[in-house]
C-alpha cells in the first residue's frame, strides 16, 4: 500500500529519465518524427496480437474489416473457395493487370490489383465448408478463434449450421459478423455492391452537378462505401472485443452496407426532417460557402506528356476564399472588383445565381493559365488553393512520402509493389499498423493451418484436396 504522505518522483507528471527529458525538449515536429518513425513499424509491438479471426469473405467490404485487424496484429485466416479463390482476385481492374500467383488452380489467371489492401497480412486457406466432411474442421477453427466475418446471403450460414446461433454454442466468447448488402428486412435477398449502397442510401443523389448545369448524379469512382463499411465493421469488432473483456461473452454484428452509406449523408436527413427540403446536387461548389470549390483551368501542367490523364486532365484546382477579406482579395487578383461590390457578404455569395457568376469569372480568369500558376498566384496572396492531384502527383508528393502514407513494399511472394494500405489510416506511436504481405496465393497456407495448427495428418489434407474439399 502506498503511503499517501510520500511524494514519489514516478507519480509526478513530466520526464522520468534523461532520455525522456531529452524527448520533452524536442520540438514537436522532431518528436512526431521520432515516435512515429515511418518504416520502423516492425520494431514495435502489435496491439491486436493474440486475437485470431476468421474471414469467410469476398470482394472488398467485408475482407477490409478483417484486413484492418490483421494490420493491427491479429492472426487472420482467410477462407476461400477451393481452386477459385475470392472472386475479387479475378475481377479488377478489368482483368488487365495480373500478378501471377504461385498455385495450381486456374494457373493462367492471376490476382488483379483490385484485390490489393483488402486482405493484407492474412493466412490463406481453402475450404468448401458447407459439405458435411468439412464441418469438423470448420468448427475446430471456430473453437480456436475469437471471431469470424462472413458475407454470404442472409441465412446461408444458418442453413449450413454455422451461424451465430450455432457457433455461440461451441464458443460463447465468439464474435460473429455478418456483413452484406441490405441485411434482414424487406430486401433480405438483395445482394449489394458499393454502387448500390451509394444509390440506395441517397448518397449518389447529392453528388455530381445539378441538372441545370447538365450534370448527373455521380457515384464515387472508387468503392468508397466498401472501404468505409469495412472500417465501420472493424470499429464494431473492437467494441465487441472490449465488451467481451468485461462480460466474457461474444456478440453478433449484423452490418448492412447500404445502411452504412446513409451515415455519410451528414445533414441531409435532418434537413428533410425539419424543413422538408430534399438536398440537391451542387457539384464542385458548396451550398454553404462561396468561394469554396473546384475550378477548371485552361492549360495543362503537362502539355507534352503522351498520357492523356496528364496531358488533358491535370487542370483542376481547389479555391477557397469564402470570408469577406479573402473574397475581396480574390476579386482583386482576378480583376473583377465589380464582383466584390455586388457580393459583399457570404449570404449574397452563396445564392445560386451569385455562385454561377463568381465561378464563371474565376474560370475565365484561369482560362489562359495552368493549374500550377493558379495555385501559386492564389497561395502567394495568402488564399487557400490546392491542385487536384492525380496518382502520379500523389506518388511524387513529399508530404505522403515523409509520412510513409504511400510506400514500396517488397512483398515476399509478389515482389515490388507500391501501396497505401494501412499506412493511410493514421499513425500510431506505440503500436502502429504494418503490412507484412499483401496477399497470398489461393490455399497457400492450407498445410500451415490444417496440419500445423489443427493437427490433421498430411494424408487427410491430400485426400481433401483430391476431393476438391479444400
Amino acid at each position, binding site marked *: 500500500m502506498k503511503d499517501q504522505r510520500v511524494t514519489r518522483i514516478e507519480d509526478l507528471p513530466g520526464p522520468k529519465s534523461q532520455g525522456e527529458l531529452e524527448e520533452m525538449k524536442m520540438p514537436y515536429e522532431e518528436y512526431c518524427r521520432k515516435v512515429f518513425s515511418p518504416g520502423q513499424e516492425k520494431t514495435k509491438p502489435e496491439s491486436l496480437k493474440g486475437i485470431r479471426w476468421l474471414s469467410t469473405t*469476398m470482394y472488398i467490404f467485408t475482407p477490409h474489416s478483417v484486413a484492418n485487424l490483421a494490420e493491427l496484429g491479429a492472426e487472420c485466416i482467410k477462407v476461400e473457395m477451393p*481452386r477459385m479463390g475470392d*472472386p475479387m482476385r479475378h475481377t479488377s481492374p*478489368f*482483368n*488487365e*493487370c*495480373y*500478378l*501471377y*500467383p*504461385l*498455385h*495450381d*488452380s*486456374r*494457373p*493462367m*489467371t*492471376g490476382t488483379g490489383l483490385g484485390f490489393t489492401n483488402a486482405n493484407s497480412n492474412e493466412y490463406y486457406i*481453402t475450404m468448401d465448408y458447407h459439405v458435411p466432411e468439412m464441418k469438423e474442421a470448420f468448427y475446430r477453427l471456430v473453437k480456436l478463434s475469437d471471431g469470424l466475418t462472413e458475407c454470404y446471403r442472409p441465412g446461408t450460414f444458418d442453413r449450413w449450421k454455422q451461424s451465430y446461433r450455432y457457433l455461440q454454442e461451441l464458443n460463447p466468447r465468439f464474435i460473429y459478423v455478418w456483413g452484406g448488402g441490405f441485411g434482414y428486412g424487406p430486401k433480405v*435477398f438483395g445482394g449489394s455492391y458499393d454502387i448500390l449502397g451509394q444509390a440506395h442510401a441517397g448518397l449518389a443523389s447529392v453528388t455530381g452537378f445539378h441538372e441545370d448545369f447538365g450534370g448527373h448524379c455521380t457515384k464515387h469512382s472508387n468503392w468508397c462505401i466498401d472501404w468505409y463499411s469495412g472500417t465501420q465493421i472493424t470499429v464494431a469488432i473492437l467494441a465487441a472485443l472490449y465488451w467481451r473483456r468485461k462480460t466474457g461473452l461474444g456478440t453478433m454484428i449484423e452490418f448492412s452496407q447500404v445502411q452504412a452509406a446513409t451515415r455519410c449523408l451528414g445533414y441531409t436527413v435532418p434537413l428533410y426532417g425539419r424543413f422538408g427540403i430534399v438536398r440537391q446536387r451542387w457539384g464542385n461548389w458548396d451550398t454553404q460557402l462561396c468561394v469554396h470549390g473546384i475550378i477548371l483551368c485552361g492549360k495543362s501542367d503537362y502539355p507534352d506528356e503522351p498520357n492523356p490523364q496528364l496531358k488533358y486532365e491535370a487542370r483542376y484546382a481547389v479555391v477557397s476564399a469564402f470570408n469577406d477579406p479573402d473574397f475581396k482579395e480574390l476579386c482583386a487578383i482576378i480583376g473583377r472588383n465589380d464582383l466584390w461590390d455586388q457580393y459583399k457578404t457570404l449570404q449574397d455569395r452563396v445564392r445560386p445565381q451569385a455562385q454561377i457568376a463568381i465561378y464563371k469569372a474565376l474560370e475565365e480568369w484561369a482560362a489562359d493559365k495552368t493549374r500550377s500558376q493558379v495555385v501559386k498566384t492564389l497561395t502567394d496572396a495568402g488564399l487557400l488553393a490546392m491542385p487536384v492531384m492525380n496518382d502520379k502527383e500523389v506518388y511524387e508528393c513529399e508530404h505522403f*512520402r515523409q509520412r510513409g502514407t504511400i510506400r*514500396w513494399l*517488397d512483398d*515476399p*511472394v*509478389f*515482389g*515490388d*509493389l*507500391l501501396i497505401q494500405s494501412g499506412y493511410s489510416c493514421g499513425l500510431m506511436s506505440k503500436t502502429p499498423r504494418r503490412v507484412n504481405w499483401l496477399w*497470398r*496465393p*489461393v*490455399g*497457400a*497456407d*492450407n*498445410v*500451415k493451418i*490444417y496440419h500445423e495448427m489443427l493437427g490433421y495428418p*498430411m494424408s487427410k*489434407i*491430400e485426400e*481433401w*484436396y483430391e476431393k476438391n474439399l*479444400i
Partner: protein
Amino acid sequence: MCDIIWCKDCDTVNYLDPYYFWNWEGKIKCAGCENVYYIYMIQGHMYKGPEKKAGEKPDILPVYADKPNDGYEQILPGTPGKTRPYNCLPRHIYLGKADMVKFSARGRPVRGWRPQPPSTGVAGSCGFTWDIQKLSPEVWQEYQEKIKKGEVSEW
C-alpha cells in the same frame, strides 16, 4: 460467382454471366463443340438442366469458356461463334490480355509474368518467399543488368 455448364463431350467449361442468367430459361451452345444445353435458372439457382438438346437452335452463347484439363485454354468473350459478343469493350489494353510487367515503376522485379510453375506444394500450399534468383534466373539476370545501368531507384 457464376454458374457453369461443363460439357463432358469436349471437356469445356462454359461460364454463364450471373446477372444475365439470374432468372433465365433457354438454350446455350457450348463454346467447345456443337452441343446445345437447355437450362432454367431461378434466382441464380439451376432449377432445370443442363439438358442436352442436340441439333436445336441455341438462344445464346456463353460469356466465357475454358478447358481446365487442357492447360486452361481460354475462349475469351467476343469470340465469334463461341462466346457472346462483348459490347462494352473498352480500350485495347483492357481486353483481358495480361500485362507482362516484370519490373515496377522504380525498376525492381514484380511477379507479373507467365507461365508460372503449376504447383509448389501439397494442397495448393506454397513457400512464403518467391526466390527470384532461383525460380526465375533470366529475370534475375535482367534485373542485374538494370542495376548496372542505373535503372533501379529507391523511389
